[in-house]
């Protein structure tokens, strides 16, 4: 008798055993009854959508794409990919002006940077928030991240020569946030890598990873970004034999996983060379590299693992690095989603759900009462800072602060 040796299905949806663990772990479902939940929206819905796209459910837009369902799934079903793919394939609603603005993080950054002081002043005003809330439905509780007057790219270009002098080189995909809003994180990374004898260079020309475009229904544009970035990565990886590091967990996940799985952009030849900086540094230290820490450093740090880092299974690297720092009093926060999910939480209609999702995390932070919260994701940072008042630092920045200059 002929047995099938294996079966295949898109994002493994036929491997679903209907155990419903994903649904139990979905942070959205607990806060928003309008969302059908990952099992319904994913493998169950897929069979109906294959019958007729008419069965596509608009409520799939409530999915955060946090990937916690995929981490929970014991059968290896890529539940979130199924949901996001369905949105890409079947949802043809044109994105709203607000969504276009929120999604084009690099374009908005370019536009705003030269006028940073003015833009920062205006977006911080109560009246601006009220107006944005009323007109664009961007929730008034939110504050846009401040724009920086000088870009990180500009700063690093000025230090190109001294960076090139290091015997070992690495390329840095800094992402929109470091470039336009917070170049200090990039500078912190350069400091740490330099201390390990590694020089930092830029990619020829990087574009936004595109996660916000995917989330806001602009997958065609996201695909262009993906194709461009993979080509850029290829130049660095296969052209120059470099590893590429990042400081944003979401940019990393997007380029490693979402490019091939959601956008159909093949990255097989560069994927393994793209690493979150904490993993790169941890592995160097494992192999015997040394960092010299400041004596008498002390900091009470509570570490929040971003959902996308959890999906990659790399939270351990950031945790171990922090724990390695003498004088760090370390607490690992429970695995919870902060609720913002990039641009999701900025939208007025999602604000309450977003805050409800994050509340268990916020409550734990308040009870731990650390000096800072550590986290590898910029949007988690905005959310936690806004919701708890605690300062959030990237583990790289804490590391930079703790080592001798």
């Amino acid at each position, binding site marked *: *008798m*002929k*047995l*099938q040796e*294996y*079966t*295949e*299905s898109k994002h493994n*949806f*036929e*491997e*679903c*055993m*209907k*155990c*419903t663990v994903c649904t139990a772990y979905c942070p959205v479902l607990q806060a928003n009854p309008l969302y*059908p939940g990952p*099992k*319904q929206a994913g*493998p*169950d*819905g*897929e*069979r*109906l959508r*294959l*019958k*007729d796209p*008419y*069965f596509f*459910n608009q409520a799939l837009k409530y999915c955060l794409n946090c990937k916690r369902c995929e981490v929970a799934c014991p*059968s290896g079903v890529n539940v979130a990919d199924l949901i996001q793919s369905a949105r890409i394939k079947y949802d043809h609603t044109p994105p709203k002006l607000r969504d276009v603005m929120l999604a084009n993080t690099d374009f908005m950054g370019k536009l705003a940077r030269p006028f940073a002081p003015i833009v920062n002043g205006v977006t911080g005003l109560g009246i601006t928030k009220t107006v944005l809330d009323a007109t664009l439905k961007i929730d008034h509780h939110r504050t846009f991240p401040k724009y920086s007057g000088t870009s990180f790219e500009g700063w690093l270009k000025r230090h190109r020569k001294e960076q090139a002098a290091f015997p070992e080189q690495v390329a840095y995909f800094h992402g929109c946030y470091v470039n336009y809003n917070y170049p200090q994180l990039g500078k912190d990374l350069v400091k740490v890598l330099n201390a390990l004898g590694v020089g930092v260079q830029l990619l020829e020309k990087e574009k936004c990873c595109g996660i916000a475009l995917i989330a806001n229904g602009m997958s065609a544009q996201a695909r262009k970004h993906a194709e461009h970035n993979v080509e850029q990565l290829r130049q660095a990886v296969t052209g120059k034999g470099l590893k590429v590091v990042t400081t944003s967990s979401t940019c990393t996940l997007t380029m490693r996983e979402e490019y091939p799985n959601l956008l159909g952009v093949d990255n097989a030849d560069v994927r393994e060379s793209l690493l979150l900086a904490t993993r790169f540094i941890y592995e160097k230290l494992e192999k015997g590299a040394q960092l010299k820490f400041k004596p008498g450093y002390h900091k009470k740090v509570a570490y929040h693992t971003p959902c996308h880092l959890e999906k990659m299974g790399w939270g351990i690297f950031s945790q171990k690095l922090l724990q390695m720092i003498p004088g760090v009093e370390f607490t690992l926060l429970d695995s919870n989603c902060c609720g913002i999910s990039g641009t999701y939480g900025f939208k007025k209609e999602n604000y309450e759900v977003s805050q409800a999702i994050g509340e268990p995390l916020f409550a734990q932070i308040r009870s731990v009462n650390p000096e800072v919260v550590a986290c590898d994701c910029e949007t988690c940072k905005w959310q936690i800072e806004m919701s708890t008042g605690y300062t959030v630092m990237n583990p790289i920045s804490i590391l930079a602060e703790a080592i001798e200059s």
Partner: protein
Amino acid sequence: MNANEFDVIIIGGGITGAGTQRDCAMRGLRTLLIERSDIATGATGRNHGLLHSGARYAVNDPESAEECIKENMILRRIAAHCIDETDGLFITLPEDDLAYQQTFVDACRRAGIGAEIIDPELARRMEPSVNPDLIGAVKVPDGSVDPFRLCAANMLDAKLRGGQVRLHTEVTGFIKEGNTIKGVHTVNRQTGEKADYYAPVTVNACGIWGQHIAELAGVKVGMFPAKGALLIFAHRVNNVVINRCRKPANADILVPGDTVCVIGTTSTRIPFEECDHVAVTPDEVTLLITEGAKLAPSLSSTRILRAYAGVRPLVSADDDPSGRNISRGIVCLDHETRDGLKGFITITGGKLMTYRLMAEIATDAVCRKLAIEKACETADIPLPGSEEKSYEAVAQKIWEAPTTAQKAAASRMGTRASRIRTGNKRDDALICECEEVSVGEINAAIDRLEVSTLTDLRRRTRVGMGTCQGEFCACRAAGLLAKAHGCIERERKDLEDFLQERWKGNFPIGWGDTLREAEYTQWVYKHVLGL
């Protein structure tokens, strides 16, 4: 008038019996339908669910082909909610004779079937899952039909017109006066209750089991039981029916039906005594997978949900051992002229596609006996639920912003979906998550569609037909049935039977994810729920 007296008794709750009851009821007769099990349990529910264009029969059996295409067009009008207008392809593969294509197309045209030779490239675009090596393709107006829904809609229409239905009731003998059938003795198989029913005419519409019923009446009808095995894949691989353009053979039709697709069939002659216990053999599974992959290569790596087999009710005519060459033609026997037995008609042969025509022929014969002159209207009046052309239109009319479950309900119930109680947490809760069946829809079926067991419920709502095969929905639906029938003990037994029946279909293809799922189901029911 005695409550046990009717104008006509129809034995057999397959599509022929249900269709005949509807037709008789539309002609003003007081009807009773008796079925020993549930509706659509025989060949009606055990086939591809193919809305034949007739193309398959065009070369060898032009008469059947003509009947098929006529009925095909009629069913699109009267049974919209049971039909998916997918179109079909007849593909020629490199090992097939391309010259047969022209013979085939000519025969189709003679039978009135719109068959169009198309470029293989166009066929690949029309149906991306099709074997890319195809060298020829013909497009025909095939489709798919849900036989359970079709059968239930016919029964429901008969009921709405005053007809009565006794399911799970077996005919144990006939009440005869001289050479006239006056009625039937029956026993309810669930309660053991006996009852006699009387009518001047009785119709034997029992498919393959018609041979047994005829024997009970004292006449002989020789059937030719030919088993056909099929496999259900867990999702739709294709959205267009795919056939092989060659003389009909094994496993050469792949039909998309609702959320799944079905490959079939085989054809093996079996002894009459085995009709009640047909099982799918390992050889049949091998054949279906191997031949199926020639139609759509991805089938070889697509999860299989179930295997099942049915018995074609062919009427014995010659010595052909395979049964393939016997006409699928309709046979209507008036036993008064044939055997001198008054008040008894057998309607058999034919197929799902031509059920309405069979019903019309049988009803005409009934009416002749009762001297009633009323023309048949079944080709013009839509079945209940089929008053709208598409489920999109149905859902949009009932709900402003239909949920997925509401859309799915509209696709299953047609316009009858407006009767589902909805709009509150309890009624909108899902019983079956794979197929999106709500509490409201289950209760609507229990209220109107003669449901006594979970298996009955499955045929009417698709509960338990999805990927999980009852893992999560069975216990929930059992709760609703226990409430409706006011009996927990009976329902507990029913739940066991249902799960056993689901496993029966999983067993022949028990490997991989389907086996994992079955084990998980067993764990849930045996170890968690203590069944």
